[in-house]
C-alpha cells in the first residue's frame, strides 16, 4: 500500500480530528463518540457482509462480547482497561471464528446464515441476562476512576480522538484487504463460491478469516462503548438494535466499500437527529427514518450513498475516464502486502 492510497483516509480523519476544537458541548461530543462507535462496529460488519457477502443479522454477538469482556475483566479480575480492550478484540475474533466454523462448515449461507447469527446473538443475550458473571438483568457498572491508564478521560474530546484513531486504523485495514490476495479471494467467494474453489480458493478458510476479523473489529467497538458509557446490560450489549445498526450503516453508506460504513453511520445518525429536532418528543421517530431510508436505499440506491455519488459523477463528468479505469491504470505496484 502506498501513501497515495491513504490520502483520502488521512484527509477525512484529519478533518474529523479538528471537530472537538470547534464544538465542545458534551451532548454533541457524546453523539459524535456514539456515532463513531457505531461506525467502527459497522466497519466490522462490512468486512464479512460487504466484502464477503455473508449478511449477519446478529453482530450484537460480537459487540456484546467485546463490551462484556472489557467490563468483566476489569470488575471481576482487576485487569487493566487497556489490556481488557485488547482481550475484548481477541474474544470477538474467537467468537466470530467459532460461529463461523459452526455455520460455514454446515454450508449455511444467505437467509439461513442471517437467521443463525440472529439466534446466536439471542442466546448470548438470554445468557448474559441470567448469568451472575455478567451481572444478570442488573447489568454491569464500571466504576468511575478518571485516569488515562484506566481508559477514562476527563476530557470527552480525548475519547473522541481515541475512537477516531481506531476508525482510521480500520479504514487502513479495510483498504489493505481490498488490495490483498485475501480480499480478492473473499470477494470471489461472495460473487461465486464454486468458481472461486475451482481457482484454488479455500473458501471455508477465507470466510473464517473474514468472520474472525469482523468479530474482532466489532468487539473493539463494543469494548469502547462499555468504556465510554461505563454501563452495559444484556439488552444494550447483545440487543437486536445493535445488530440492526451495524448492518444498516454499511448498506446505506455503500456495502463492500472502504468508506461506506462511516458514511452510512454519519448519514443515519445525522438524519435521526434532524428527525428528532423536527418531530420533538415522538418516540421512535429516528428509527422510522432509519427503516424508511433502508427500504429506499434497497429500492433505488444499490451500492448506497457512495454508489449513488459514483453514478452521478460518471454521468456528470463525461469527459473524464470512468473512475474505475483511471484507478486501475494508475495502480502503483505495491511492495508490502
Amino acid at each position: 500500500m502506498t501513501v497515495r492510497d491513504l490520502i483520502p483516509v488521512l484527509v477525512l480523519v484529519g478533518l474529523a480530528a479538528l471537530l472537538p476544537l470547534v464544538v465542545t458541548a458534551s451532548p454533541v461530543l457524546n453523539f459524535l463518540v456514539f456515532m463513531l462507535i457505531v461506525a467502527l462496529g459497522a466497519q466490522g460488519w462490512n468486512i464479512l457482509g460487504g466484502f464477503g457477502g455473508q449478511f449477519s443479522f446478529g453482530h450484537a454477538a460480537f459487540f456484546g462480547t467485546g463490551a462484556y469482556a472489557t467490563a468483566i475483566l476489569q470488575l471481576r479480575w482487576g485487569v487493566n482497561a487497556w489490556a481488557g480492550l485488547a482481550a475484548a478484540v481477541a474474544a470477538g475474533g474467537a467468537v466470530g471464528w467459532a460461529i463461523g466454523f459452526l455455520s460455514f462448515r454446515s454450508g449455511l449461507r444467505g437467509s439461513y446464515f442471517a437467521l443463525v447469527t440472529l439466534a446466536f446473538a439471542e442466546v448470548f443475550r438470554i445468557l448474559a441476562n441470567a448469568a451472575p458473571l455478567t451481572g444478570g438483568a442488573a447489568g454491569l457498572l464500571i466504576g468511575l476512576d478518571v485516569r488515562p491508564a484506566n481508559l477514562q478521560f476527563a476530557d470527552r474530546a480525548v475519547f473522541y480522538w481515541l475512537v477516531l484513531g481506531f476508525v482510521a486504523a480500520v479504514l487502513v485495514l479495510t483498504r489493505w484487504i481490498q488490495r490483498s490476495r485475501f480480499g480478492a479471494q473473499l470477494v470471489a467467494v461472495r460473487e461465486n463460491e464454486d468458481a472461486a474453489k475451482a481457482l484454488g480458493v479455500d473458501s471455508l478458510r477465507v470466510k473464517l478469516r473474514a468472520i474472525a476479523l469482523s468479530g474482532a473489529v466489532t468487539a473493539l467497538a463494543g469494548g469502547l462503548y462499555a468504556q465510554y458509557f461505563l454501563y452495559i446490560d444484556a439488552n444494550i450489549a447483545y440487543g437486536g438494535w445493535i445488530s440492526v445498526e451495524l448492518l444498516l450503516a454499511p448498506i446505506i453508506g455503500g456495502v463492500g466499500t472502504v468508506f461506506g460504513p462511516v458514511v452510512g453511520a454519519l448519514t443515519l445518525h445525522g438524519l435521526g437527529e434532524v428527525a428528532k429536532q423536527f418531530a420533538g418528543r415522538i418516540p421512535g421517530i429516528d428509527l422510522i427514518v432509519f427503516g424508511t431510508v433502508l427500504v429506499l436505499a434497497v429500492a433505488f440506491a444499490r451500492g448506497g450513498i457512495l454508489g449513488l455519488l459514483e453514478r452521478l459523477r460518471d454521468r456528470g463528468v463525461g469527459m473524464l475516464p470512468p473512475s474505475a479505469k483511471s484507478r486501475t491504470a494508475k495502480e502503483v505496484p505495491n511492495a508490502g502486502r
Partner: protein
Amino acid sequence: MLVVDSVSKRFGGLMAVDGASLTVTPGSIIGLIGPNGAGKTTLFSMISGFIAPTDGGIRFEGADITAEEPHRRAARGIGRTFQIVQPFAGLTVCENIAVGAYLRHAKRADAIARARAVAQRVGLGPELDRPAGGLTVAGRKRLELARALATEPKLLLLDEVLAGLNPSEIRDIIPVIRGIRDEGVTILMIEHVMQAVMTLCEHVHVLAQGRMIAEGPPAAVCADARVIEAYLGHGAAARLAAEGAAHG
C-alpha cells in the same frame, strides 16, 4: 498424469457415471465426447473435486486425490472451466483473472501482471477493465479459459468452451487452445463441436449412459459402430453402412 479408475456416481436411482476409466498422459489433448446426458460433466466434477464419487478412485501424478477438496486439487495443478460460465459478475475482467493468478502469486502486483499477460494470451486484452457481467458469450468463454489458465495448471479440464460460439469465433479460439498445449499444459476437453475435436485431439474417449464405450484416435472413434449407435440410435450404424454402400 491423471488416472481415473472405474469411478461411479449414483444420484438416487440414476447411475450418472458407471465404472468409467480414463488415463491422460502428459502433453496431450484428450477429448471426452458423448451424447447429451452421458455423464461427461459429472465425470469432470468428480475429477475436479466438486462431486464425490460413489465408487472408484482418482489419481493425479501418482497421488490419490479421490477425497480431496476442489481448492487442493487446483493447487496441485488441475484447472477447470464450467460449462455454464460462472464469472464474478461484480468484478472487472482483470480482477476475475487475478483471482486465479493469486493461487501462485501472493503479491498483488505479480498477480495483476500475470492476469494481464493471460488476458492478452486469450484475446481479452482490450476488455481488461470492463465489468465481467458485461461480456458477450464469447467473451465469457474466454474469461473462463483465462481464469483457469491463470492458476498455471498442469492439467486443464475444458467443459464445452466452444459451445454457443459462432464458426468464426471457434476458428479464432482453436489456435489458442493448441498454443496452451504447446506451452506444456495437458488438456482434457468435453466438446460437442466435432470439427474441433477432429482437429485438436490426439485421442478421444466416448461416454454414453455413464459408461466408456470406445476410445482411440478421433477418426477411428467416429467410425466405430458403437459410437454411431450411441449418438443416432440402435441400428443406425448398419443403416448408414448400407446407405454408404448403395451410394458408393
